């Protein structure tokens, strides 16, 4: 993938303008403490960790650094998590940090990981994940950095083995600029991925969701859903590429992006792409961009509901529908973020 092409709607110059001098990162704060038996963490060498992203252009902005730190998190075979592993990342004022996690799920393990990103500064978060045979990962990501002084680049590479599954739920609602870029490799039969993303933007925020899903084996499934709400002078980007290799017959790839524009000066850029080299596959993509529905709004107001409350109800309906997928704990945390957005004056 050409770097310039991939950063067409989130210009590298714009990212650079938010850069700060690099500082040595601190480890993400991990909960519970102490870690449960079956979860192991150790620091690993940064340069070797970076090699795991070698297929990406070396000048990718999330890989431009000298002082990164990385940790390996191993989930032992057949481990079955009762409570989520929580990784809290916080940026620090006027500095730039590079933090990496190498998350390995050994065969038949089940793990629930929650990542939160907060505070100001520039945060570059790399996640490399291998999901072993029959393993299941549930990944919740809540990005709620400072809207004026925070920026975030997230770069993820995930590989799924036979009969494994990953489900991700991402809320991208903070930071002046945030790009979450996922590269998913379905390398063995019967592996599947489901991603749900909510982008909630206001003021002058720029949010970018970019994903490349590689179907590299027979009978693999991917389902992607992205919902974006844009208020004020915001810019949203959704780029989704589904690649189906010649031998990846019986692939099922579905992708949908919906964007709700609340302001005439908000911009949404949507780029769905399919590259299919196998002949027996089912792939679909859809993109919809629109304002709040006038008929719905009038119907609510004609029942006495004031204009602003009616708008909130409709925005809530748009973004809360995918929440039903989440566990109770995860949805409690997520809802707090969503409510803050819905009830703010601008939305």
């Amino acid at each position: 993938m050409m770097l310039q092409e991939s950063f067409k709607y989130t210009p590298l110059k714009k990212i650079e303008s938010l850069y700060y001098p690099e500082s040595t990162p601190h480890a993400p704060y991990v909960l519970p403490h102490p870690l449960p038996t079956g979860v192991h963490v150790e620091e690993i060498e940064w340069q070797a960790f970076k090699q795991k992203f070698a297929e990406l252009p070396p000048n990718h902005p999330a890989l431009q650094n000298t002082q990164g730190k990385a940790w390996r998190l191993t989930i032992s075979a057949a481990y079955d998590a009762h409570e989520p592993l929580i990784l809290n990342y916080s940026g620090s004022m006027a500095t730039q940090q590079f933090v990496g996690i190498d998350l390995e799920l050994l065969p038949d393990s089940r793990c629930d990981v929650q990542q939160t990103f907060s505070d100001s500064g520039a945060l570059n978060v790399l996640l490399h994940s291998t999901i072993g045979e029959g393993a299941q990962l549930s990944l919740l990501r809540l990005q709620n950095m400072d809207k004026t002084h925070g920026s975030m680049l997230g770069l993820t590479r995930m590989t799924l083995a036979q009969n494994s599954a990953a489900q991700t739920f991402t809320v991208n609602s903070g930071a002046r600029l945030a790009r979450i870029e996922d590269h998913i490799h379905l390398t063995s039969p019967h592996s599947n991925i489901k991603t749900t993303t909510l982008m909630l933007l206001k003021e002058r925020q720029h949010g970018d969701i970019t994903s490349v899903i590689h179907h590299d084996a027979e009978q693999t499934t991917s389902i992607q859903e992205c919902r974006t709400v844009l208020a004020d002078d915001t810019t949203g980007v959704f780029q989704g590429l589904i690649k189906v290799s010649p031998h990846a017959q019986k692939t099922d790839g579905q992708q949908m992006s919906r964007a709700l524009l609340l302001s005439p000066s908000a911009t949404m850029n949507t780029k769905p792409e399919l590259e299919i080299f196998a002949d027996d596959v089912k792939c679909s993509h859809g993109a919809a961009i629109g304002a709040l529905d006038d008929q719905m709004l009038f119907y609510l107001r004609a029942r006495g509901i004031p204009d602003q409350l009616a708008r909130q109800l409709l925005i809530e309906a748009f973004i809360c529908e995918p929440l039903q997928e989440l566990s109770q704990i995860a949805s409690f945390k997520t809802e707090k973020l969503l409510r803050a957005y819905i009830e703010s004056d601008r939305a």
Partner: protein
Amino acid sequence: MIVATPLLDLKNLTVQLNDKVILKGVDLCINAGEVHAIMGPNGAGKSTLGYALAGRDGYTVTHGQMHFKGDELLSLTPEERVAKGLFLSMQYPVEIPGVSTLLFLRTALNSVRKARGLEELDAPAGLKLIREKAKILNIDDAYLKRPINVGFSGGEKKRLEALQMILLEPSLAILDETDSGLDIDALKLVASTINGLRNQERGLLVITHYQRLLDYITPDRIHILAEGKIVRSGAADLAHQLEAHGYNAVASETTP
């Protein structure tokens, strides 16, 4: 002599939609306690009248006045008109995915109560009231959990409109084609619910194509709307003449 203020007083009401003049000077006066019906062929402007009264965007009043309880409606938002006592039951109720019917009903009820200076109902009290009223219309609890109008049949949607009406207790209810989509049993049920609302303070404006609904809700006055004007008004039996002879024949006779 004390002359009561009419509930609704329209004078020379002229309304256009996208530069097209739809209503061309409608005069209509409804007093408290009265039931009026508006009949007319397709495209006569019946629904436009309902939308203009409810304050829908795009329905521009270019001339005339619409007084409701003595005040001009024009400067009021749709929600302010509802708080003041106007209710429009729509011909095509809108489906809203993602918003539960119960949440919608409770929000509407409390918005209107608040605007009328009444105390808002807490969740259990609101639920109790909504369930009570829903029972009158044979609306099952399961429907209340579903998103607004999503997957409802035509008749179910109309029953839900009637539920909203009795919850919001309007002084003037405008019923736009409330009978369409209803089977005979549902029609009787909805009609008896509407009749249950009738009293000395309330008025009804029934918009319909057919006399069917008027067999159950007897109007005091019937008006024929054709090409944006009321061309004839009369007593309840006018509906039967229309049914027998058609709009063209009846509309061309002069008002007695």
